[in-house]
């Protein structure tokens, strides 16, 4: 396996405030990597750095190509989909329009229609509300819409920022079941930022722990899970 995404010495920040102080990580093609860490560790900034939403320095290589300095829309066109924190749906547009926007860069109209139908079968809640404004959906439904929209890009790399945030445990389970399906069936490469370390480590094959903008621990998910410190800090047992 080769690394689809390689990051070396990544620094990023907002104006004078630095949030990342040199992060290294690699995501294998078809793999799923979880990023764990406390609030303020720089997890969201890391994802924003990968899609060109904050100023960065350091090396980001996606499929052998440097992403440094590319605009967010160009990075999306290369096949990187990003489900941002807070979901980032278009509240005044309908569910269907949100999904069509996910496929904005694609030109295979028939394939897009088939994919929309497919994700509506996977998320029946969306099918029932296709014509409604996205702003009327519940939090869980909005998250499903955000993920379905990202998948419509047919991404080579899917970035997910705290998909379980603010959701009921049952809804979170359902959502992670779908992510498992995407991993198995689509073989979509994923980078998952998640507070719920237990769930994330069940699904991921690799994990990194971020603290104060630095990688402090990395390894196969099972190994990170059994790490004494991680268990105490993030798993709560």
């Amino acid at each position, binding site marked *: 396996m080769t690394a689809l995404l390689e990051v070396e010495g990544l620094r990023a920040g907002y104006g004078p405030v630095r949030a990342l102080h040199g992060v290294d990580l690699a995501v294998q093609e078809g793999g799923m990597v979880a990023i764990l860490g406390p609030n303020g560790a720089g997890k969201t900034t890391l994802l924003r750095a990968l899609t060109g939403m904050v100023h960065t320095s350091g090396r980001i290589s996606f499929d052998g190509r440097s992403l440094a300095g590319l605009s967010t829309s160009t990075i999306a066109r290369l096949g990187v989909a990003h489900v941002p924190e807070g979901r980032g749906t278009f*509240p005044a*547009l309908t569910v269907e329009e949100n999904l069509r*926007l996910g496929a904005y*860069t694609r030109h295979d109209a028939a394939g897009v229609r088939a994919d929309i139908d497919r994700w509506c079968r996977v998320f029946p809640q969306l099918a029932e509300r296709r014509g409604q404004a996205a702003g009327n959906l519940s939090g869980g439904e909005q998250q499903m819409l955000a993920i379905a*929209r990202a998948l419509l890009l047919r991404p080579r790399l899917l970035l997910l920022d705290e998909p379980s945030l603010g959701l009921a445990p049952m809804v979170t389970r359902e959502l992670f079941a779908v992510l498992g399906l995407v991993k198995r069936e689509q073989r979509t490469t994923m980078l998952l930022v998640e507070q719920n370390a237990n769930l994330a480590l069940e699904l991921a094959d690799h994990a990194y722990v971020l603290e104060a903008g630095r990688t402090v621990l990395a390894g196969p998910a099972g190994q990170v899970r059994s790490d004494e410190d991680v268990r105490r800090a993030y798993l709560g047992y």
Partner: protein
Amino acid sequence: MERLLQTVVDGVADGSIYAALALALVLIFRSTGIVNFAQGEMAMFATFIAWALHDGGRPLWLALLAAFAAAFLGGMAIERLLIRPVEGADAITKVIVTLGLFILVNAAAGWIWGFTNRGFPSVFPSGVARLGGVALSIESLGIIGVLLAVVGLLGLLFQRTKLGLAMRAAAQNPDSSRLVGIRVGRMLMLGWGLAALLGALAGVLVAPRLFLDVNLMGGVLVYAFAGAALGGFDSPLGAVVGSWIIGVTENLAGTYVSAVGADLKVLVPLAVIFVVLLVRPSGLFGSPEVSRT
């Protein structure tokens, strides 16, 4: 009865001209959150381009086409060069930029074409059409027809095409739009180009009814603001309906209320803006965003 009908049709025609400019204001407000005070002056400048070409011997249709193209390109250039740098700035900075643009365009037109009145030809024949025994001005009917066609085309663009969907998305949530691969900057440029085009349309429709000079659009802009405020500043449908109401009210008051007459007509839109702001600040069709996070 005939006089009432004529007044109403003329009012809707005037309202349609205001509506074209009001649509331009709404388009820009929705996409960039800017109230473009220079919209009228940009329209006046485009109208002068049409006048100059026609005066130089070009056929009217060619002069109009060239003016529309110039307006479209000019609107895009203004977005790229003047508005983009203040994109993230606060509201007052943006207002000052559009006010500066107002003065700049107004002065430039005066410098190039002078400050005298010019006659501007109408694309419509002057006579009247008899509809059910009522003589109605062909020009008024033509203006209403043009506006309805424009509204239909805009509806098709925004509701039925991928480009229109992307423009709506970019206006609503620029960050998420970039994440799905939309070039947001280009969408904003396109929005300003379209708005300038709509303004130019208002300019060439109103110029034959008044005289063309550098202050051509001053009054129209006030009426368009009143129409947009009445309809709701974020609603295209509201802008059209609001402008029609303003046009009809203005004409009825001018015709039937002797105390108002032609001189005080301009008080009507000002009174409307005042009352709307007091009673229903979001306008008839404007609605607070529905959202849940």
